[in-house]
């Protein structure tokens, strides 16, 4: 079986991949796809596959999507399947949940997850908890998706990361794709899942192209929810992150490799259920851990990972305290110089690695 390993740094130069030769096989045709197009394909394929699937949200239909993620879908599927809503999140999220309860499979788009705060009661109390409260009688097969976290220059009310908030709640699945392949596979998996799934996309990643494998081009390609991926192997230290920060970790790893420090980069892919096993296995190999996230430190994704590590088998393998690299604990400022210094940069990761390894 040919294996294809792609090393991609924020969509820049693809490092060459090595294939094991099989005499009767030609190299798989890899294709460049942006994250936006991958999400678009995922929705297109699932809309085609199952007529109970429909998309609703602000500007998703005639405007082609505020960030053009749903481009062309309204033209193809029409008013019944692609619905423009008024600017009323609490209302349309509730409507989406109700539709899911009655047998449909809605994709509810929040223009950004900041606006989901207006509707969060419907996501948590109406969607996440209902299957439990009904003792298995009433499932809610719904997907909530949209861009999450910091963008560029959009200031405090439009830059929050909700991974920790949604990741906190039982009854919800929460995924956070990084690459185009992640985006496609996880969104398809989310739509096929019979449970409420929150898909945290990232606006800054939408335009980034990635090579996706032939396997990923298939209409049945799904990535299992709850499984992390090792993006880069290494022996000295484990870097765990999700979404855009995975790219930064890979960039930092490339710089550190020149100094002989080999980082293992783990792409979480799923926030909840958290793949603690993958992280523990890695830490038991490298003996050092750093988590990297865009969100705030207190009660964040990194905090949970570090806690699990303390409580699990990998604790005894740590040679240094595990550490979190996070956004600065402030509302997001507007001015560029302040904003740039409010989120982790590559140098912060490198600094933390060296401090942890004591080099």
């Amino acid at each position: 079986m040919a294996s294809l390993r792609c090393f991609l740094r924020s969509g820049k130069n693809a490092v060459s991949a090595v294939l094991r030769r099989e005499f009767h096989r030609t190299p798989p045709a890899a294709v460049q796809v942006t994250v936006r197009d991958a999400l678009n394909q995922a929705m297109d394929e699932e809309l085609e596959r199952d007529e109970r699937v429909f998309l609703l949200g602000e500007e998703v239909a005639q405007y082609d999507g505020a960030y053009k993620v749903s481009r062309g879908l309204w033209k193809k599927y029409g008013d019944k399947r692609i619905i423009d809503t008024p600017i009323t999140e609490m209302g349309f999220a509730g409507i989406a949940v109700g539709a899911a309860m009655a047998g449909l499979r809605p994709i509810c788009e929040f223009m950004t997850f900041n606006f989901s705060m207006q509707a969060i009661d419907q996501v948590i109390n109406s969607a996440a908890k209902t299957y439990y409260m009904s003792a298995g009688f009433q499932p809610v097969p719904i997907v909530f998706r949209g861009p999450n976290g910091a963008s560029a220059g959009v200031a405090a009310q439009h830059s929050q990361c909700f991974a920790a908030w949604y990741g906190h709640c039982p009854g919800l699945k929460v995924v956070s794709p990084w690459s185009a392949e992640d985006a496609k596979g996880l969104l398809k998996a989310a739509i096929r899942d019979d449970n409420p799934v929150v898909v945290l996309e990232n606006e800054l990643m939408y335009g980034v192209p990635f090579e996706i494998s032939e396997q990923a081009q298939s209409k049945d390609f799904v990535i299992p929810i709850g499984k992390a991926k090792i993006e880069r192997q290494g022996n000295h230290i484990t870097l765990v992150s999700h979404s855009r920060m995975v790219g930064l970790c890979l960039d930092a790893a490339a710089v550190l490799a020149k100094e002989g420090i080999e980082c293992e980069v783990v792409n979480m892919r799923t926030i909840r259920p958290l793949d603690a096993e993958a992280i523990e296995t890695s830490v038991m190999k490298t003996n050092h851990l750093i988590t990297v996230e865009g969100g705030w430190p207190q009660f964040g994704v990194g905090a949970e990972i570090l806690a699990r590590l303390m409580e699990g088998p990998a604790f005894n393998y740590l040679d240094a305290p595990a550490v979190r690299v996070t956004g600065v604990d402030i509302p997001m400022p507007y001015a560029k110089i302040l904003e740039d210094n409010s989120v982790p940069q590559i140098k912060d990761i490198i600094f933390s690695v060296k401090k942890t390894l004591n080099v």
Partner: protein
Amino acid sequence: MQNMLTVIANALKGGAKMNGAQTVSEGTRVVVSARSFADLTPQASFDIKRCDLHRLDEGPSVQTVLTREEGLRYYRTMQTMRRMELKADQLYKQKIIRGFCHLYDGQEACAVGIEAGINPTDHLITAYRAHGYTYTRGVSVNKIMAELTGRRGGVAKGKGGSMHMYAKNFYGGNGIVGAQVPLGAGVALACQYQGKKEVCVTLYGDGAANQGQIFESFNMAALWKLPCIFICENNKYGMGTSVERASASTDYYKRGDYIPGLRVDGMDVLGVREATKFAADYCRSGKGPILMELQTYRYHGHSMSDPGVSYRTREEIQEVRSKSDPITMLKDRMISNNMASLEEIKDIDAEIRKEVEAAAQFATSDPEPPMEDLCNHIFHNDAPLEVRGTNPWMRLKSLS
């Protein structure tokens, strides 16, 4: 003798400028004025469109008196707002302004008319299309533009940006659609509580008009008779969605149900002023809230990332510009009633251009905020705080 002649010559020259001297040929300065200052009409009466009323027996007056001084002031304010927004457009395209930028050009008569109908001690809150209101509520063009460019001289020290500018009795600048409406009702509650006969003008758009929290605010404001003027600026589109596609009822002035309402031509600054005065009197008398719908139009798209022509035609935009532009309408009224001269208006335009250009200069040359300011302003009146940076070894300082 020589001095006196100079003084007289200067006085005549200055007078000629004010009196709108008709030049014999381009470029020559003519001291003898064709019209004298005394010839201009100091005030005139104007008809305004009758408002559509909801649960009101009578509405604002259909006639209003405009003085020359008022007219020039409204003109100057609207024109400054216009030029400021166009300059912001330019700077955004040069990537000197980044992030979100929602421009107000076309809607100037709303902000200026409202301000003319209330007192500086009254309160106002709006959504994210806020640059115009920031100006009418007293913030200088310099401080607005420097905030857009994210510099330390900005009204929020560069930390807020386009949607988060504040001033005394002006509560922003709010990024979340509709959230400002309960806030405005709350300001009105404080006004009532403090007994100073002040009112709060609470603005929202046609897109926000369907938000549940607005109806919650209507209910409490009416129940408790809060001195709140709810104003819906209906510019026909909520981002890319026309009013017909978003609202089951587009009679926004009636959507307050038990709250009386009026629908006003938002392109006529005098109409807006009269309606606002009417509404403010109503609220101040303790009768409770009132709702105003201003029918207006934005020339730009929803924001700088929206070209604004995928959901409406260029012909429509052009039609509004040529037939209903608020600044042109005021200018034409004043000129045709001999309340101002073309020369004078041109001079004002030139002054404003210079002022806005200078503000843009300031906004582009002012330095960015200092890194020491990164963590400040988390809490008010609190002891200095330690804030975690991007890693546990980075301990930053936060002052109130």
